[in-house]
């Protein structure tokens, strides 16, 4: 890991929305610095401004203050600089799975044939073999999510934002998808910023977890996750893991014991 400029830097970014009842501070100045190739998670209660941060980084929302730097260059308010996967898969129903995954390349004027040639091997390697020419409505939730993730990945930016990609999946599919995402991440060495409600998911996947608070949205703690990689499921039961989890839950004002049944189920 080099000590050059961080891949993605969110510098003192704040957001205030004007509402009829007055200004609403969605985001107090937030600062994040993410080195190349890191997997970083944001967790926090709903309404803590996670999606606002994402929209600002993706250039879809102009912040009230602060800047977004990518590779040390100001990228505030510019679109098309990062891959952004929204909560919904947003696959276009009139395109085949293959043509959905090449959407980003198509928008960047990569010739269709070349784009498809690049996408096909990835679809095969990452669990969508046999689904390339089907339409999204024929796919299960997990498969749709894979296609959406591959679309984000094939957009070919160094930084990828994932907004609760597995939020709507059942527990078993979710675990599978986490392994799949880990595989993808180590294969492509992207810099990932990941939003989730699931504390265990955040710790299991990340190098660092940022815990956010509300009113205004802000980062209240940054917790490094020094667990060795590649991680295995068993590591979620290791003492180190549980210490981090307990700390996260405390910060989220949750009773750590309340999640014990969830552990047992998993």
């Amino acid at each position, binding site marked *: 890991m080099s000590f050059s400029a961080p891949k993605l830097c969110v510098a003192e970014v704040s957001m205030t929305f004007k509402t009829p009842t007055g200004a609403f501070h969605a985001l107090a100045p937030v600062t994040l610095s993410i080195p190349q190739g890191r997997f970083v998670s944001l967790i926090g209660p709903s309404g803590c401004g996670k999606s606002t941060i994402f*929209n600002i980084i*993706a*250039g*879809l929302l102009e912040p009230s203050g602060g800047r977004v730097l990518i590779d040390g260059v100001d990228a505030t308010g510019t*679109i*098309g*600089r*990062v*891959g*952004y996967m*929204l909560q*919904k898969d*947003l696959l*276009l*129903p*009139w395109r085949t799975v293959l043509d959905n995954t090449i*959407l*980003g390349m*198509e*928008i*960047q004027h990569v010739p269709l044939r070349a784009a498809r040639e690049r996408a096909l091997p990835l679809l095969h390697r990452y669990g969508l073999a046999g689904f390339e020419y089907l*339409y999204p409505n024929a796919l299960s939730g997990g498969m749709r999510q894979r296609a959406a993730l591959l679309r984000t990945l094939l*957009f070919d930016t160094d930084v990828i934002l994932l907004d609760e990609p597995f939020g709507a999946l059942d527990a078993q599919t979710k675990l599978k998808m986490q392994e799949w995402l880990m595989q993808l991440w180590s294969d492509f060495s992207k810099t990932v910023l990941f939003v989730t409600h699931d504390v265990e998911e955040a710790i299991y996947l990340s190098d660092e977890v940022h815990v956010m608070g509300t009113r205004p949205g802000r980062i209240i703690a940054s917790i490094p996750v020094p667990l060795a990689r590649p991680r295995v499921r068993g590591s979620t039961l290791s003492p180190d893991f549980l210490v981090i989890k307990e700390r996260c839950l405390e910060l989220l004002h949750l009773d750590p014991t309340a999640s014990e049944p969830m552990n047992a189920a998993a």
Partner: protein
Amino acid sequence: MSVQDTPTVGAMAGLNRPQPKPEAARPTAVRRLPVQKDWPTWALIAAQIGILVGVLSLWEIGARAGWIDAFFWSQPSAIADTMKIFFTAGDAWTDISFTFRSTIFGFLIGTTAGSLLGLSFWWSRNYAAVVQPYVICLESIPKLALAPLIILVFGIGLMSKVAVATALTLVVSTLTAYAGVKALDADSEKLFYSLGATRLQVFRKLVIPFCLPWIISVLRVNIGLALTGAIVGEFIASQHGLGRTILYAGQTYDIALVWVAVLVLSTLAVVMYAAVSWLESTLRKGVRQ
């Protein structure tokens, strides 16, 4: 409480006592799912033909026996004769072609321009907000009431019929395409912009394909409207067309010719409706939604 309870308990007891009776009645209350037996296709067709032949025969017999006034209602044999004359000696093909062309041109122009207008509202919220009241106004005007004006402006030729047909189809298409635009998911647009798309790319790759099912759904309605517009245009002033033939025949008390023109018109309507239905289902398969 106890005062209120007592009648309830009494009522319950009253209900409980004749309990053996309903149980004894239960076996007789067996019900089965009502089943309707489908007739074979030939039987259905035979019934349909039977009704047609029956009605026509009664009409003919009634007219000959004097029960039905053939002057006002004509009779099937006279209609058949007139049909023969209409197609051999008359203007049948000129009229059919005239009405057909006004309908198709009106349908194409109205549907295309209306859909484009509806889609154009996506480009600017301000523009949409300014124009929308006018579109709604236009929608509420009975367009056929404008037909005399349109005839004055466009003359008595084909153009004026096309214009009436266009006026009828345009607004429906506009509102339907706009409904599609409004149903567009903001997150899908966000996805496109996050990929660095331009407005034109979002329009071409998202807005148009997304709204196509809306646009297609209005085709069948529009072909009927366009035909109505063409006929009304011909009613007001025209030298050709099936509508003009109907009007002319009515004014000269040639009731058999009225029937002939109505029959030909209906056939034309059915043919165009079938063609558009086919087009619609073909397009639907193409766009998937």
